[in-house]
Structure formats: C-alpha cells, structure tokens
C-alpha cells in the first residue's frame, strides 16, 4: 500500500476527533451575551405641541450618552443623559398683549433641555448570530430646562428642573462582534416633560438618534 495512503487513512479520524475539542478550548468563538452597553449619539429633535408654538424649527443640536447593564438575557437597566437645543430667529413676530395692543418685532428664542434619566430596555432577538438587535425602552427622570427670548435689547430667560418620561424604540446594527461589540445605534425617542414657560406647557418633542454602541 502506498505510504501516503496509509498516512491519510490514519490521520483523517484523528483530525476529525480533534476538531471539536480544539474549538471548545479556544473560548473566543463561544457565544457570551454582552453585559454592558454604552451608546454615544447625535440627536435631531422636532418640537411638538405647545413647544412647537414657541420654536417651530427642527433642532439639529443634540447629543446623548447612555450606559446600560443587562439584568437578564433580554433586559437592561441604566442611565441616560442627553441635551437638545431648540432655537429660532423670527424676522418679524406679531404678539397680542393682554391689554389688546399689538407688538411686532424681530425675536430670537431658544430652549435647552438636559434630561438625566433612569432607563430600562427590552431586546428582541439576542442570539449570537443576529447582526441587528431591535429594542424598546423607557426612561424616567428629571430634566433641567433653560428658555431665553430676546427682542431688540430686551431679553428674558427662565430655568427650572422638571419631570420627564421618554419611551423609545430603536435597534443596534452590529458590525464588529467578539469579546467587544461595536455597532450603529438608531433610535426614536418621545420626550414628555413638565417643562412650562411663557405659553409653553408640558414641552414635548421627538428625537432621532444616530450613534455608536459599544458592548462587552
């Protein structure tokens, strides 16, 4: 018999038997759900309700950062901080006064919103081979707000600390998976607050987030 043929007949069963044992020892390819997740994102926001009456423009000034820790396979809890600025300049704004007069003039307005919330998220599809992890979440906490209005050289500002709740839907698209995972985080968040100033009461907005997620 050809010696090479004898070698292959002996080697084949040895190799086949050795493969599974090798894979188990290496560890890195073994599935392990992530336990901690960080998100850093850019936000665009649309004011709605009475806040839309104060500033109609979409806000392109917003950031968010959150930290999430898994408490079970599908659920995480954590903290979120974000900042949104709604601002607008009006070349001519007409206002009716309580006495029946009419004020017409250029106006600049802004409103800052800085929430700090406790958050909880539920993840759908957390298997090892999923490249997309959709989730729904909910935040509750406090929000500091500062509003400012100026016409000519007359300015007025108000600030205060209020209550906020913010349900959220989103998904993480993982593009690096391993001991540390990196992905693209996309989310839409509805902010309901008790922020009230001038003619605004219970300021509300939608925020769309695009950011980077790190998980390990």
């Amino acid at each position, binding site marked *: 018999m050809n010696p090479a043929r004898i070698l292959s007949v002996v080697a084949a069963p040895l190799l086949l038997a050795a493969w599974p044992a090798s894979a188990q020892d290496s560890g890195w390819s073994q599935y392990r759900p992530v336990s901690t997740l960080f998100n850093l994102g*850019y936000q665009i926001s649309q004011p709605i309700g009475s806040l839309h009456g104060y500033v109609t423009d979409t806000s*392109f*000034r917003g950031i968010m950062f959150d930290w999430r820790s898994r408490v079970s396979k599908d659920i995480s809890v954590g903290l979120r901080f974000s900042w949104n*600025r709604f*601002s607008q*300049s009006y*070349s001519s704004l007409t206002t009716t*006064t309580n*006495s*029946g*007069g*009419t*004020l*017409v*003039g*250029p*106006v*600049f307005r*802004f409103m800052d919103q800085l929430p700090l919330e406790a958050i909880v998220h539920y993840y759908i599809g957390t298997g090892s081979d999923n490249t997309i992890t959709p989730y729904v979440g909910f935040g509750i906490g406090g929000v*500091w707000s*500062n509003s400012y209005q*100026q*016409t*000519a*050289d*007359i*300015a007025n500002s108000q*600030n205060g600390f209020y209550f906020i709740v913010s349900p959220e839907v989103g998904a993480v698209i993982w593009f690096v998976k391993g001991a540390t995972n990196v992905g693209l985080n996309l989310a839409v968040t509805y902010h309901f607050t008790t922020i009230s100033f001038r003619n605004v009461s219970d300021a509300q907005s939608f925020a769309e987030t695009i950011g980077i997620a790190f998980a390990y």
Partner: protein
Amino acid sequence: MDTRRWLLLAAIAAQGCGGYYAPDSVTFGTVIYTQAGPGVDFKPLRKLFIDPTADVFKDGTQQPSVAVPSSTVMLINSRMAAYGYTSVGTPDAADVGVRLTFFNNTVSYYYSYCSIYWSYYGCYPYWGYAGSYSTGSVAQQMLDLRTNPPPGGSRTVLWLSAAYAVKAGTSGDAVNNLNNGLNQIFDQSTFLKTSAVQ
C-alpha cells in the same frame, strides 16, 4: 462622493454650532407697539392736528420740548391722509391731535458667568463683562379733541403707538430712524382708517 459627504458633515456642524446668540437683526431691530383705545370708532374722524413740538425724556427726566422735524411732519401728514385724515393748523379745528414723545436712555449692563448655566465657573473670581449703551424710542399718541376734558381730567387717548429701540431724534440719522419707525407704526395701524377712504 467624498465631497458630498464632507458637505453633509459641514452642514450638520454649521447647524450644530450656531444658534447661541441672537443675530444682529434681532439685537439691533425695532419693536413696534400699536393699540387702539377700547371701543374707539375711527370712521367718523376727519380733521387732524399734528403738534409741532415733541416731549423729550432722558433717563427718566423730562427735558425741554423740541421741534418735530419737518420731514417727520410731512410723513405723518401723508400717512394719515392715506387713512382719510385732513391736516388742520390749529387744535381747535381738529377732531384729533397727534403728539410725539422721545425717550433717550443710557442702559448699563453687567453679565456674569456665575450661574448654573455656566456651571458656576465664573463665581470666583467674578468673571463677567460690563458696559453701557444709549438707546432711544418714540411714542405717538392720538388724543380726542372733539370734546373738552372734564375739570381736572385729561383728554381721551384714541390711539397709542411706539417704536422701541429706534434711536429716534431730531437731527442727523436719528431723523431717518424716527421716520422709519413711524412708517412701521402706520403700517401696523390700519385700523386708523376713516370712512372717507372706505
């Protein structure tokens, strides 16, 4: 493709970085206030007397009256004529009288970074800035001259208007500012129309 991406990023950055301070068009803009007296009917009014002198207040203290610039008188005449008023030379022959008042003020300001908004970083030492500037406004009122006021009383004000931060005056550029402010006031006061133009 790269160029488009950079343009998009630049546009987002520009949007993200702006919006912190009021633009000059707001800071140096003029605010117009106009109000008709409660229940006043302007339709039967016809004859107008324009007071040739204006009251002046500087930083809250009354100054000697000044003559209203001729271009301003002409402006008031023409704008009120468009609403159906005819100018007369004496108050006795008029239904209504219009009088101007100038307010010139010096505003002092001080801004400190010692607040929660700046995280109190300017509280020690007390960082901030201070200064002063002058501003001016003009008020215009229309009085009812058809009936004499009761003893010790005053005439009824039919219309009150003002141009705030117009830096109005009786000489130089201040006259142009005054006339521009008055034009805006008349633009915003279409309720002054009498039945002569309707």
